[in-house]
C-alpha cells in the first residue's frame, strides 16, 4: 500500500487535482418528505415514526409540498433550471437503517439541473457548475452505543428516516482544496439565505462527499477517482482532500494505479482509509417509483416560489458597498448571515454614518463575540445597539474609550448596548472647560521642554499634550475640546 509520503512541491506541481462535491442538505420542513411525522432533532429514538416511514407492509408515500418548494427555492439560489416534470425513483439496496430496502430519490429526471456558483479565487471569479439538485428521503441511523447490550447488538433509530433532503451535485470543476472550501462556503451561505436548511454539520443537516482524482497538467482525461465520505466540517474536507491528493500522486509516482473506492476520513489522524476492501460499483437497480406520480412544478408554481427568493449574498454585497460606502471586507462580514445583513440594513438606512456601524461590527463586536465563544445570533449587542453607539460617537457624546468600556459591560451583563448605556446614567465625555483648563495648565507646567518645542514651531507636539490631558481625565474628556483648550493656552 502506498502511503501519503511527503510529495515534493516540484512533483506536486506536475499534477492537477480534479474535485467534484456532493452535498446533502436537510430541508427545514416540519414534517417528513413522505409522511406527516415530525422532523424534530433529538427526540427519543423511534418516537417520530409511522407506518409510512417505518416501511410497514402496505404503507404508501405522499409527497410533502413544502419539501418541493424548499428544493425549488434552493435550486433557484444556485441558478439551476427547474424541470417542470421530475420523477421519483427507487434506489434499491439492503441496509438495516433503510426500512423499505430502497430509498425514494430522483434519478434520470431530477427536479433541477444546470446551475452554478461563483467563487472568488486568486482575485478573480470562477464559475463552478452544478449538475443537478434532486429531492430524496433520508435513511435512519444505526446506533452502536448508548443502550444496554450495545457490545453485542446494533440498534436502529428511524426518527431520521424519511426526512427531506436535497442533494446538490457539482461538476468536477474544482482544481484545488481551496476551491472546494470556497465552493462549500458559498453554497452554504446561499442555502442559509434561502432559509431552506440550517446547514448544521454537527446535527448532520449538511453532509458532504468529495470525489477526487489527479492528472498530469495538460492531460484532458480524468484520472481514477476516489470518493471521500464522512467528513463533518469544511476544514476537514480541505484537509482530507490535501491528504488524498498527496496519496494519489504518491501512488502514481511509484508507478502504481489508483483503485476506485470509497474512503473515510479520520480527522484525528488526518488520513483517509478505504471503506471496503472490494468496493465494486453498486447496482442500485433504479426504476421509477410506481407509488408516486411524476412531480409537476408548473410555471405558475415556479413563479410563486421565486417570489420568496431573497436577494442572494453576492448581489447583496455589491449593492451594500454601493449604498453604504462600506468596504468589500465589511460587506462580507455584514452578510455572513441573512439576519445580520437584514439588521444592518434596517439600522444603516437611519444612521448618520453607516460606515461607522460597519467599522464597529468589525472592530469591536466580532472580536468580543469570538472571545466569548458566541455566535452572532447570540450577541448581547444587537445591530440596533451598534447603530446607537455609532451615533453617540459620531455626535461626540461618548469617546471611543467609553464605547469600548460600555461594550465590555454589555458582554459582562449580557444586556444590549442601549440598556447598559441607560443603566450607566447616559455617560458623556467631559465638556467641563473649567476642569479641563486646570488639567491643561498642570500638563503645560509639568512639560516645559515640550512647550518650548511647540512654541519653536513643532506644532505636531499638540498630540502629545492632548494625550497627556486625556490620560489625566481618564479618557472622559472630549478630545476635540481638549485640543481647543490646549491650542489656546500654548498659542497665548
Amino acid at each position, binding site marked *: 500500500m502506498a502511503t501519503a509520503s511527503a510529495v515534493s512541491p516540484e512533483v506536486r506541481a506536475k499534477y492537477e487535482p480534479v474535485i467534484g462535491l456532493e452535498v446533502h442538505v436537510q430541508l427545514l420542513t416540519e414534517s417528513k418528505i413522505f409522511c406527516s411525522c415530525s422532523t424534530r432533532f433529538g427526540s427519543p429514538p423511534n418516537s417520530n415514526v409511522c*407506518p409510512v416511514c*417505518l*416501511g*410497514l*407492509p*402496505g*404503507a*404508501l*408515500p*405522499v*409527497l410533502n409540498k413544502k419539501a418541493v418548494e424548499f428544493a425549488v427555492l434552493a435550486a433557484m439560489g444556485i441558478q439551476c433550471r427547474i424541470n417542470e416534470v421530475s420523477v421519483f425513483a*427507487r434506489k*434499491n439496496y*439492503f441496509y*438495516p437503517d433503510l*426500512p*423499505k*430496502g*430502497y430509498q425514494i430519490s430522483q434519478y434520470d429526471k431530477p427536479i433541477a439541473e444546470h446551475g452554478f456558483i461563483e467563487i472568488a479565487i486568486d482575485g478573480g471569479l470562477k464559475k463552478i457548475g452544478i449538475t443537478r439538485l434532486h429531492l430524496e428521503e433520508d435513511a435512519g441511523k444505526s446506533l452502536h452505543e448508548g443502550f444496554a447490550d450495545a457490545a453485542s447488538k446494533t440498534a*436502529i433509530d428511524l426518527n431520521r428516516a424519511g426526512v427531506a433532503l436535497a442533494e446538490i451535485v457539482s461538476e468536477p470543476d474544482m482544481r484545488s482544496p481551496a476551491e472546494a472550501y470556497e465552493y462549500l462556503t458559498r453554497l452554504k451561505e446561499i442555502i442559509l439565505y434561502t432559509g431552506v436548511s440550517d446547514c448544521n454539520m454537527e446535527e448532520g443537516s449538511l453532509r458532504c462527499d468529495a470525489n477526487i482524482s489527479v492528472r498530469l497538467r495538460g492531460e484532458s482525461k480524468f484520472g481514477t477517482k476516489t470518493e471521500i465520505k464522512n467528513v463533518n466540517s469544511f476544514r476537514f474536507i480541505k484537509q482530507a482532500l490535501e491528504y488524498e491528493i498527496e496519496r494519489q500522486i504518491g501512488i502514481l509516482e511509484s508507478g502504481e494505479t489508483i483503485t476506485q473506492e470509497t474512503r473515510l476520513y479520520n480527522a484525528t489522524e488526518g488520513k483517509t482509509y478505504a471503506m471496503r476492501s472490494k468496493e465494486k460499483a453498486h*447496482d442500485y*437497480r*433504479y*426504476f421509477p417509483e*410506481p*407509488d*408516486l*406520480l411524476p412531480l409537476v412544478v408548473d410555471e405558475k408554481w415556479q413563479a410563486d416560489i421565486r417570489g420568496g427568493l431573497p436577494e442572494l449574498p453576492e448581489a447583496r454585497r455589491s449593492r451594500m458597498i454601493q449604498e453604504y460606502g462600506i468596504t468589500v471586507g465589511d460587506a462580507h462580514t455584514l452578510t455572513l448571515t441573512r439576519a445580520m445583513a437584514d439588521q444592518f440594513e434596517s439600522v444603516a438606512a437611519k444612521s448618520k454614518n453607516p460606515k461607522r456601524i460597519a467599522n464597529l461590527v468589525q472592530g469591536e463586536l466580532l472580536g468580543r463575540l469570538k472571545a466569548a465563544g458566541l455566535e452572532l445570533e447570540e450577541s448581547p449587542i444587537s445591530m440596533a445597539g451598534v447603530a446607537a453607539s455609532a451615533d453617540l460617537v459620531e455626535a461626540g457624546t461618548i469617546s471611543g474609550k467609553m464605547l469600548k468600556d460600555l461594550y465590555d459591560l454589555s458582554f459582562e451583563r449580557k444586556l444590549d448596548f442601549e440598556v447598559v448605556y441607560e443603566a450607566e446614567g447616559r455617560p458623556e465625555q467631559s465638556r467641563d472647560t473649567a476642569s479641563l483648563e486646570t488639567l491643561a495648565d498642570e500638563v503645560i507646567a509639568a512639560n516645559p521642554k515640550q512647550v518650548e518645542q511647540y512654541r519653536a514651531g513643532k506644532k505636531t507636539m499638540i498630540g502629545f499634550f492632548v494625550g497627556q490631558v486625556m490620560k489625566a481625565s481618564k479618557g472622559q474628556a472630549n478630545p476635540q475640546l481638549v485640543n481647543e483648550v490646549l491650542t489656546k493656552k500654548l498659542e497665548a
Partner: protein
Amino acid sequence: MMTSLHSIDSLRNAIREERTTAIAVASEYYQRIQNYDGEVGAFLTLCEERAMKQAGLIDQMAAEGQPLPPLAGVPIAIKDVMVTAGVRTTAGSRILDNFIPPYDCSAVTRLEAAGAVILGKLNCDEFAMGSSNENSAYRPVHNPRDKTRVPGGSSGGSAAAVAAGMAIATLGSDTGGSIRQPASFCGVVGLKPTYGRVSRYGLIAFASSLDHIGPFANTVEEVALLLRTIAGRDPMDSTSADVAVPDYVAELVKPVKGLRVGVAKEYFAEGLSPEVRTAVEAAIQELAKLGCEIIPVSLPHTEYAISTYYIIATGEASSNLARYDGARYGFRAKSSTLSEMYRKTRDAGFGAEVKRRIMLGTYALSAGYYDAYYLKAQKVRTLIARDFKEAFRWVDVIASPTCPTTAFRLGEKSNDPMAMYLADIYTVTANLAGVPGISVPCGESSEKLPIGLQLFARHFDEATLLRVAHAYQQAKSRLQHG
C-alpha cells in the same frame, strides 16, 4: 340455515326491522366457517372480537331506530394482503407469520364505516403470487364446487369464501387476474376496478403499478354496492384518482339496449377450451338479445401481455419485497452476521415462487438489462393500453372469456410455472392497461365447473361495466328460473 339472509339487501332489512341481529348473523357465519372451512381452507385468521364489537354497534343503532349504513351487519372477509389493525396479516407468507399491523387498510376502514362486519382474513397465494392458491405458505384452498380442484388465485380464499357461503362478500386483490380468475373458477362475481379507483393504502404491495383491490360477491348488484363503498380518492395513496364516484347501484337499472359490445379475436385463441368458448359465445348472444350491438374489435398486442406482465410485475416485486429482511418485523432467522440474517431470513421466510419472482425481477432491473427488459416492457405496456383506447373508440365494453379453462386439479400445474402463468392470459391486459374488468358466471362445463364471462370497460367507467354485467346476470337468472 337462514338462506334468506344471504344477500346484502335482505340481511340489512332484517336487521333494521329487528327480525334478526348483526350479532346473530355474525355468529351464524362463524358457525358456517367452522362447519365448512375445514374442507375449503379459505380463512387464515378469524377476528371474532372485532367482528362482534362492530355487530354490537350495528344492533345498538337498529335498536335506537337510527338509519343504518349501507352495509350494516354484512359479514365480509378480507384477503390477507390487506392490513388490519391488531389482526394478524400474513400475505400468505411465513415471513409475516407473526405480523400484527398497527393500522387498517383504507378499503377496510371504509367497509367498516359503512357498517360491514369483518369476519377474518382470507387465504391466498404468498404475496398474491400465483393462480391456484397452492403458493399459500399455510395451506391450499379447495374449490367449493369441486374440492379436488383449485379455486384459482391468488385471491382463492376470497372467491371460495363467497362460493361456500362463508361470507356475503369479500375483498381480494388483482395484479394480473387474481380477482377475476378465481371468481370464474368458483362461480362468483369478481371485479377489478380501474387503476386509481380504489386506494391501495394498506394493501401489501406485490407490483405497485398493477395492484388493485376489488370486491367479490354472488351478484353484480352487491359488487356494485361494495365498489361504491370503497372507491374514491384517498389522500394516503398518491395514485388514487380524484374522480367522482357515481352511485353504481342506481346506475345498474339503466337500459343496456344500444350499447356496443366488442369481441376481440385475440381472446378466442389457441388454448381456449371448447366448452368455455361455447359458454362465452352464448353469453355474448344473450347480450345481443338484450339489445346490445356486437362488434368485432382487435387488441393486436395481446400476445405480448404475459411476457410484459412478468417483467414489470417481478421488477416491482423485487423492490417491494426488499423490506422483508428480518430487521424490523416479521420472521427473523437466527444468525450471527448481518448478511447471514438477510440470507437466512429471506431463504426460510419466502416460498419458491416468491423467490423465483424476486430473482426474475432483480435481473430485469439490473444495470445493463434494464433497457432491454423493464424499459422495453413499459413501452409494450403503452401499446397494450393504446389497443384498448383504440377499441373503446368503437365499443362501450369488450367481452371475452375470463380464463381459457375451468378450474384445474390441485397439483396439476404446480410444477409447471409457465403453464400456471398462462392461466392469466386473458386477464393481465386489464392490469397493464389499467382498465376495469369483471368476471360474471356464464354457465358450467360438462363436469359442472363454473365458467366466467369477462367484460372490460373504459377507464373509470365501472358504471357501464357493472350495468352490462348486471343485465346479463338478470337475464341469465330469468332463463334458469323462468
